[in-house]
């Protein structure tokens, strides 16, 4: 995406506003001029939906503004939040661009083995293919029992009910509800390589 400096400045001024001003206030910077300017920045109107910042774990409150046409038109700090009191950091204040971004991919992309390019594919096709691969890989590499150390320099046959051929990585940026569903499905399938960002 090409973005001219003019466009960058235009969009930035609309978002930073109150949040940064409030933060600088605590650092002893006189923010009166900035606050006065922020007051003149047109605020997008629409239905206000309470949300939470997707970046770090502080959990700042956000308000997502939705137009009558159902489009997200703005994301700002939520002044009610006792954690953030309306402020956001540079990342949180940029959340709108995470949602509305020309580079965001909105279709399924597929790369065949050995290929040098992406192909576009239907979502339903991809889901069926992924389910088939998951089953095929699991069934070919499932361990009901395994010889494990018995603690006395020997081994003993133990029930393990797992597969080492499937792995899953990620989860700290996704909902609690997803984490629950995903661990449940992975444990249902016997997956033990199950990890997320808490390890980094």
């Amino acid at each position: 995406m090409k973005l001219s400096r003019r466009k960058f400045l235009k969009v930035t001024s609309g978002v930073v506003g109150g949040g940064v001003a409030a933060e600088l206030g605590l650092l002893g910077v006189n923010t009166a001029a900035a606050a006065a300017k922020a007051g003149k920045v047109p605020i997008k109107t629409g239905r206000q939906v309470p949300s939470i910042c997707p970046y770090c774990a502080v959990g700042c409150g956000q308000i997502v503004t939705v137009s009558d046409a159902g489009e997200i038109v703005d994301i700002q700090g939520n002044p009610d939040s006792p954690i953030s009191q309306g402020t956001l950091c540079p990342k949180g204040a940029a959340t709108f661009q995470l949602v509305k971004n020309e580079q965001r991919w909105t279709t399924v992309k597929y790369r065949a083995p050995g290929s040098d390019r992406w192909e576009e594919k239907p979502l339903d096709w991809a889901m069926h293919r992924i389910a088939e691969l998951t089953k095929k890989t699991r069934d070919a590499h499932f361990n009901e029992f395994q010889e494990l150390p018995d603690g006395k320099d020997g081994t003993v046959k133990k029930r393990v009910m797992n597969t080492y051929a499937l792995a899953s990585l990620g989860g700290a940026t996704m909902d609690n509800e997803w984490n629950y569903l995903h661990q449940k499905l992975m444990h249902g399938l016997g997956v033990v390589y199950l990890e997320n960002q808490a390890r980094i």
Partner: protein
Amino acid sequence: MGSNMAECHPVAFRWPLKARTEHDAVLMHVDPRFTRTSAACDLHVPIRAGSDIAFLGAIINHVINSKRWNEDPFFREYVVNYTNAATLVNPEYKDTEELGGVFSGLAPNGKSYANASWSYQRNPAPPKGKAGLGPFSDLLLQQVPGRPKTDPTLEDPQCVFQIIKKHFARYTPDLVGRVCGCTPEQFLKVADTMLNNSGRDKTSNITYAVGWTQHTVGVQIIRAAAMLQALLGNIGRPGGGVLALRGHATIQGSTDIATLYHSLPAYLNMPDGRKNHETLKDFILTEGGPAATSYWGNYPKFAVSYFKAQYGAAATAENDYGYNYHPRITGDHSHMPMMLDMAAGKIKGFFVMGQNPAVGGQNARLQRKALAKLDWMVVRDYFETETAAFWRNSPEVISGELKPAEIKTEVFFLPAAAVAEMEGSFTNTQRLLQQHDKAADPPGDARSDSWFTYRLGKLLKEMYRDSPLDIDWGVKNLAWDYDPEAKEVAPWRIKDEPSAYRVLKEINGYTVADQKPLPTFANLKEDGSTACGAWIYTGVIPEEGKNNAARRKPDDWISPNWGFAWPANRHIMYNRASADREGKPWSEAKKLIYWDPAADSGTKDPAGNPVKGKWVAPSGEGIDFQPTKAPGFIGKDAALGFDWLSGNDAFIMRPDGKASLFVPAGLVDGPLPTHYEPYESPVKNPVYQQQVNPVAKVWQVNGNSYHAVADPKFPIVVSTYRVTEHHLSGTMSRWLPWLAELMPELFCEISPELAAEKGIKNAEYVTIQTARGEIQARALVTRRMKPFTIDGRKVHEIGIPWHWGWQGNAAGDVANDLSAMVGDPNVSIHEGKVFTCDIRAGRKGGRI
């Protein structure tokens, strides 16, 4: 310490700044670099990366030998009642002082510890009668040991307090100077400020982030801080504690409801083929037994309810609630060994969702090359991340080391919905669950993460529906019904989203018979009549249709009606310790919960008379204690859980009810923090003969070479870290034009002294090299970095942020190409905060 809060958690940093401006709080920053945090603090003390235990151990030594600590009765009362300072340790125990820097129990090969000698001395086990508590609890009760022996005078040479005193005696201000590289005066200023701002009327807090976790001694650094805070009476009290600043929106939630190999939801351990976990009974006795005299005495209820949630009606008492069909782990399956096993061709299929190991993984080059060994990979994200594109344009493809035609990995990219485009909850770094509502449908074929996993599960369950095989029982019988009600999806184009409410209700737990949500985890049963995904979250859906994570009524302090803090809306854990032994607040200024002897407890004695007395919290804070247990109550010896714990046992999740200054069991690298050098270090350990954590996780494999101690080829210490404008591996920031423009390019912070030695000029390119890889970055020559003098030797340190990769609007080399896979032995977290390297002027390949 271990955090650059102003940069990485800026909105949270408003609160210490407010405490400073409005309440004269003193802010101190102890960190290798002078950062934005240092700039806003009263004091910055630079210490060499990886020397934190030496610094903290010396504060402990200073505090317990100080006049104030020994003369103010507050400290003695807190420590004797609420910590295990008085507990007597096994006479077989040998300290690092006696064994050259290791503890008793180290195996002959030096790679693991047996912890029998670290145990408590105990009274004989009490006789147990027939209890009738439940099938598993009755067996658990039989394992309850005798109470630990104590010496409340703290004089016995085998008591924890005396052991600590000896252990840290060599951690003096002078030693801090030699090991950490700050002056003894700087150290004393920090130690005295902590001491003088702790006590009856004041509390001090320690806040950290991954600057403490990413070490081969990470767990022990945090332990050292927790010990100091317990000794200073700063745990369970407002303004106290050891606070972790975590880096992802629900990294706490994804640890609580673990998508982590070693843990079931709510901190139950994963069944393990190496342990005595043959049956559900074995599992419960092995895992629940050691902590049965704490609230973990309810392990049977937590475990059975988890399996009921997992397998629904198919889980019965007769089939051990499906336990036999649940997978077992057999080793360390965490991130780093996972990628090494992938590189070895063991792993065939890989789901990568919202994570970017091609940039964020340690020894990222090795991790990228591992992806080429897969049969297939599914990536779910917003943008074409480096992980998704590894086969197309990674540095290995550009260099010709990997050829797309030879990479057999079948790759799927599935577009993900943004947070604003789905309903769900996050758990923040304070254990607070907050709901986010759905504002709009995601565009095109983008779907929520839950949609993906739910749909995949449905397809797989259909495929396994008619399987008669034992090995398929677990997936075939997985309880998997989260279809939404029509009204939940009525406003939206996408009609087959799973119901976030129904998922959260299962996490919360419900009664099987009538499907009603459970208001508290005290309602859980071990007979299969309750199902509960994660007992610590019980209470988030206290009744049908009510979601406490969506409460949005703030106030000016605890805000108990904003979201839901697990467990049971308790914001400050172990808050029984905010009152003294008799249950009175330590002071008016630090009042939180206290015993009100006149309040109606709501219970009646055997004669039918109302019983007076209960714990109260005017702020609305949840009480982290049995609500009607009097401060003077003496726990029963032959009992589980709350019945065993006495009225002053504030630390209800610990098997002795006390904060563990000394850890008899649970850590694999020793009962006390000890200074070891980072795995790669330019100096010999100035404190002990033992150089590094003897049981650190090490992977000696091709492509993961380590540097020797004081390796002349790699003499410089390097830390990796973050900047405020980017988020972790950059997938949520480098594609955003605003953020990319604010912080467009990789840089390396270098002291003027090192720049002069190496002929490096500000803003020109430098090349940084390790045995793992080589990257180039712009030099940022700054006085914020300074060389340290360690044990008489000059040690240079540089810093590199790790947000960049080759994709996105702001591209740059991958800092993690430099780091090695080496980890903390307790938790397998890497040592990205400190390793060694070399640096030279100019770009890679010799260009300027």
